[in-house]
């Protein structure tokens, strides 16, 4: 079965062609992304109106590029999977409407996919992983721990109580005058810094050891930058100290969850999974306990349509098709 995946939940419009024969057995034939970082860099963040307007322009070329690079034509596609939430509603609608139009014009079955489900299954695009496994989803909009029990069966174990980890990276980069996107800049800057230079207090959520809180580290950096001690710090040292705090605050609950639920494999996914220090620390901490860390390549960590095609594939294989009145949902949650 040949599946066309479409994703436009935030600032990237993406399309992919996935070939699948049975649940979880899939080959990515093509995965393309039209990235808008250049547009949003000017504003130090994503501007929803600009994002959706740009999707309108790029969605069709991105799909055509994916088909061309897979060497397939639209006539060969057997089903369409598209993100319908969560995300920015204006952005979601562009991909969703396009998919529905395509489904109606071609008579192809289509399914609406939860973006988070895409991230949870993304590690399977490159690695066979036996379920259940633990997944840490970290991005600009999400920070959460899930048990992936089976296709379509996910259990949330914990989540952030305030800011997402990626949001903390972006906002601290802004505080430090470093630009956008913050995660990548801080990661690179940190390599030249000493993370022991200044101690950023680590936050724990009282009574909820599998939850996260990143608002305090952001405030700590803001206070530090206002203080005399902060004025004497080099940017790489401060970046490294901040990053180390965030990484520790992600690693501890993740390992605790793996122990508590006896899960051997930990999957790291979402845009922040591209952070090299997080990958190294989590891999080391996992190995230390005889567990395995699986992290997709960078292109499948950030928003992409291959993971959306995969997350829609098991339902399409079962013959499912969603009704054309299924709508986009900005705050769509995963059924527990």
């Amino acid at each position, binding site marked *: 079965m040949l599946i066309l995946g479409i994703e436009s939940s935030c600032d990237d419009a993406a399309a992919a062609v996935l070939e699948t024969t049975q649940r979880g057995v899939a080959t990515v034939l093509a995965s393309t992304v039209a990235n808008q970082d250049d547009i949003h860099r000017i504003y130090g963040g994503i*501007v929803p109106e600009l994002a959706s307007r740009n999707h309108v322009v790029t969605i069709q070329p991105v799909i055509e590029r994916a088909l061309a690079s897979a060497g397939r034509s639209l006539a060969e596609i057997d089903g369409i999977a598209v993100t319908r939430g969560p995300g920015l509603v204006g952005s979601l609608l562009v991909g969703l409407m396009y998919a529905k139009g395509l489904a109606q014009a071609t008579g192809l079955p289509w399914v609406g996919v939860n973006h988070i489900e895409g991230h949870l299954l993304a590690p399977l695009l490159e690695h066979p992983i036996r379920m259940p496994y633990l997944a840490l989803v970290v991005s600009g909009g999400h920070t959460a721990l899930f048990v992936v029990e089976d296709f379509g069966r996910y259990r949330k174990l914990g989540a952030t109580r*305030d*800011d997402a980890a990626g949001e903390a990276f972006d906002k601290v980069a802004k505080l430090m005058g470093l630009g956008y996107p913050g995660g990548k800049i801080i990661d690179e800057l940190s390599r030249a810094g000493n993370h022991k230079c200044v101690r950023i207090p680590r936050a724990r959520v009282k009574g909820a050891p599998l939850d996260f809180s990143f608002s305090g580290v*952001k405030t700590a*950096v803001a*206070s530090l930058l206002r203080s005399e001690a902060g004025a004497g710090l080099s940017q790489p040292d401060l970046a490294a100290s901040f990053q180390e705090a965030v990484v520790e605050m992600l690693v501890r609950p993740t390992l605790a969850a793996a122990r508590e639920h006896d899960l051997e494999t930990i999957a790291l996914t979402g845009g922040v999974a591209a952070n090299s220090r997080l990958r190294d620390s989590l891999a080391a901490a996992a190995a230390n306990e005889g567990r395995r860390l699986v992290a997709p390549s960078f292109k499948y960590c950030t928003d992409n349509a291959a993971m959306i095609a995969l997350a829609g594939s098991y339902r399409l294989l079962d013959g499912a098709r969603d009704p054309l009145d299924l709508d986009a949902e900005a705050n769509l949650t995963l059924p527990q």
Partner: protein
Amino acid sequence: MILETASPRETKAWARRLASLLKGGELIALVGDLGAGKTCFIKGLGRGLQLREEQILSPTFTMIQEHRGRLPLYHIDLYRLERVGLDDLGLREYLFSEGVAAVEWYDRLSEGEAIERLAIQIRFAAANRRTIEIVGIGAPYRAMVERLRSRQNLDEA
């Protein structure tokens, strides 16, 4: 009125007191630097409206989060926008509703100055200390500040 708080807990306690005065239809406009405690304040406001604090997340990513407490709470964050108009994002609907609209980075709203509101500015004082300035703009909001001030006097007495 000007408040001095020594911890996030104290900031939230003041927001809870404010919440007890709300009847629906109010606009709470928050201004303050990154890390000043705007989301923290709204967590307290949410508590006061019988929401659980952990339901109130930073809405930076989604821009608008709706909560159903004692009154509907529309938690809005304009951080990602340089300049935004009332007719963008359907803001008008949220700002003039039957619920409570709490807007972070209100200064990004271009027509914002002309709108009656409870204006709250949070400033860094020292490490965990914050100065919170609350100004009522428009008669109903000035009355609200007076009622809040009487609570302050009671607490100090």
